[in-house]
């Protein structure tokens, strides 16, 4: 009580003496910081550098207050990090980005000042504060009827991390996966026969190509709107290789309208190689694998028009599809083509299931390319994947059993075990 009274007297004296100098703005420095309000800064862990995280604590009574954060570097340059944050947000990050590369730089000392206020800080005051290079911890600012209090961090330096430790579960999983794959690869090399079950719809490939040939119609192969870096597009290209080989054997024509120029180039290579393998390089026509456009619905409109005019006997939709999936599949259905689709996009699979004769669901598409070629090396990758699926199933079953003991029978030891298991999978 005595301290507060003395503070008030000091404030009144200083108000009178400074009023004429600074237009009602008064700074009281070297005071005790507002009890319970303090601000801290630290380098953001596991990042590529150029980022500092600012955290603050405050008494519950100040829950509705606002916080403005200023940054001062070791050379005395001030700048505003964030204004009028709700104090209850408790954290802000000062990060350099491609859009704003001029923010935090690695290796430089930064001091952050949090300014706590009941009202939103006005621009004039903000400009004055930016000019001040001595806003120390526990400065009280009085501006007309508004009261501000500051807290400053110690020096904070940002740095890049060599390793993102939060991704250790990914590393461990990657090592396990690599080990299992190598094991099965060696097994395949040693001559062990590996089995792959029949995949529904793939036997229809031959039927579809044969039917088109009999009808004297071409085959249309649509790779969707993915890029060559997308896994479904790569799987689609592998299936294309097999389909092209059949096309060459049946001496018919394949049309591949492409969305992306690189996918088009890759498709040209794949088809050319398949035709050569089938002993019919003379039938290969690179103009049958053409670029349409890189606009999603422009591509859909172009392919639809081509379908209506060329009337293919079989349509393959294998790759990455989005909103254009049903537009394409419905058009294929309307011309009476036999349709075999496949994608990993779960939102588009229902449309394919509804509109196509056969659909390869998700991973079936990857397995399809192996099933069609049945090469030992590729079979080993399916066997390895299956072993990993068994491992995942066992992990889920273990979690299920632990959960029953932990929550059903309320045993603390199992609760801890369950939490550890869940946290171990956090990325």
């Amino acid at each position, binding site marked *: 009580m005595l301290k507060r009274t003395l503070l008030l007297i000091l404030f009144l004296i200083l108000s009178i003496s400074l009023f004429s100098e600074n237009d009602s703005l008064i700074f009281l420095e070297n005071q005790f910081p507002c009890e319970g309000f303090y601000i801290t800064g630290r380098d953001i862990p596991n990042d590529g550098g150029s980022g500092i995280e600012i955290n603050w604590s405050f008494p519950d009574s100040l829950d509705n207050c606002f916080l403005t954060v200023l940054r001062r570097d070791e050379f005395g340059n001030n700048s505003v990090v964030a204004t009028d944050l709700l104090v209850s947000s408790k954290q802000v990050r000062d990060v350099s980005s491609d859009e704003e590369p001029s923010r935090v730089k690695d290796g430089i000392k930064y001091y952050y000042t949090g300014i706590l206020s009941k009202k939103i800080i006005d621009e004039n005051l903000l400009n004055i504060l930016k000019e001040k290079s001595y806003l120390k911890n526990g400065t009280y600012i009085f501006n007309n009827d508004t009261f501000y209090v500051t807290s400053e961090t110690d020096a904070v330096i940002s740095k890049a991390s060599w390793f993102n430790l939060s*991704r250790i*579960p*990914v590393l461990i*999983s*990657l090592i396990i*996966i690599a080990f299992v794959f190598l094991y099965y690869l060696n097994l395949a090399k040693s001559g062990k026969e*590996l*089995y792959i*079950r029949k*995949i529904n719809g793939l036997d229809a490939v031959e039927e579809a190509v044969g039917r088109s040939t009999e009808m004297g119609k071409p085959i249309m192969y649509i790779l969707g709107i993915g*890029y*060559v*870096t997308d*896994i479904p597009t*790569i799987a689609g290209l592998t299936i294309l290789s097999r389909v092209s080989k059949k096309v060459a054997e049946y001496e018919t024509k394949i049309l591949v309208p492409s969305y992306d120029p*690189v996918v088009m*180039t890759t498709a040209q*290579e794949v088809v050319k190689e398949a035709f050569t393998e089938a002993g019919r390089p003379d039938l290969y026509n690179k103009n049958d694998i053409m*670029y*349409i*456009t*890189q*606009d999603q*619905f*422009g*591509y859909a*409109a*172009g392919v639809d*028009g081509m379908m*209506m*005019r060329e009337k293919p006997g079989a349509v393959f939709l294998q790759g990455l599809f989005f909103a254009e999936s*049903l537009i394409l599949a419905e058009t294929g259905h309307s011309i009476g083509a036999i349709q075999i689709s496949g994608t990993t996009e*779960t*939102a588009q*699979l*229902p*449309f394919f299931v*509804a509109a196509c004769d056969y659909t390869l*669901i998700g991973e*079936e598409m990857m*397995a399809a390319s192996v099933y069609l070629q049945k090469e030992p090396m590729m079979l080993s990758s*399916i*066997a390895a*994947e*299956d072993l990993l*699926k068994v491992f*995942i*199933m066992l992990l*889920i079953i273990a*979690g*299920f059993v632990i*959960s*029953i003991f*932990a*929550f*059903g029978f309320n045993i603390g030891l199992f609760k801890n075990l*369950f939490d550890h*298991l869940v946290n171990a*999978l956090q*990325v």
Partner: protein
Amino acid sequence: MGTTIGVWIAAGLTLFIYSFLYKDNPFYKFAEHLYVGITAGYWIIYTWAYVIQPMLIDPMIKNKEFILIIPAFFGIIMLTRWFPQISWLSRWSIAFTVGMGAGLGVTGAIQGFILPQVQATLVPLTGFNFETFNNFLIIFGVLTTLVYFYFSKEQKGVLRWGSKIGITFIMVAFGASFGYTVMARISLLIGRIYFLLSDWLKVLR
């Protein structure tokens, strides 16, 4: 005046595209070729303005980032496809891109799908209540779906039944997804019809 002309062109092209619902016709062909041509041209400009210039030319000229010569080289050799004698060079770029995509895909799948999915399946079973039933259904659904995607054994006995239940779960999920997406598409159709009735015909205000 300019807006009115724009609205008339947009409305006309919308009707031309919708005429495809009846059958292929010259109006649709016109709209289709216009659309494909304009978008193809647009993407050329887009690629120049948002990829080649800001990511290659500007950094090389302004910031002297000569390391970018390497990706530029890979980009240029893609064009060797026009010259049959050296067209094989383009395979380097393709090999690099496909390899990089597959490699990044593995880590991305582990981090983005596999681990979060397994973690989300580890749900607490708290007793005999609806939440427990719901959580049990999640665990059972995930396990049987995984059985469906097991390829190394013939689906007989337990595997056959597990797989059948798994595909049932998948189809139920597809049904829900189908309904949800159709609703979104209907809202797009409503938006287009609203444009025709409001901005063009001015029947709706």
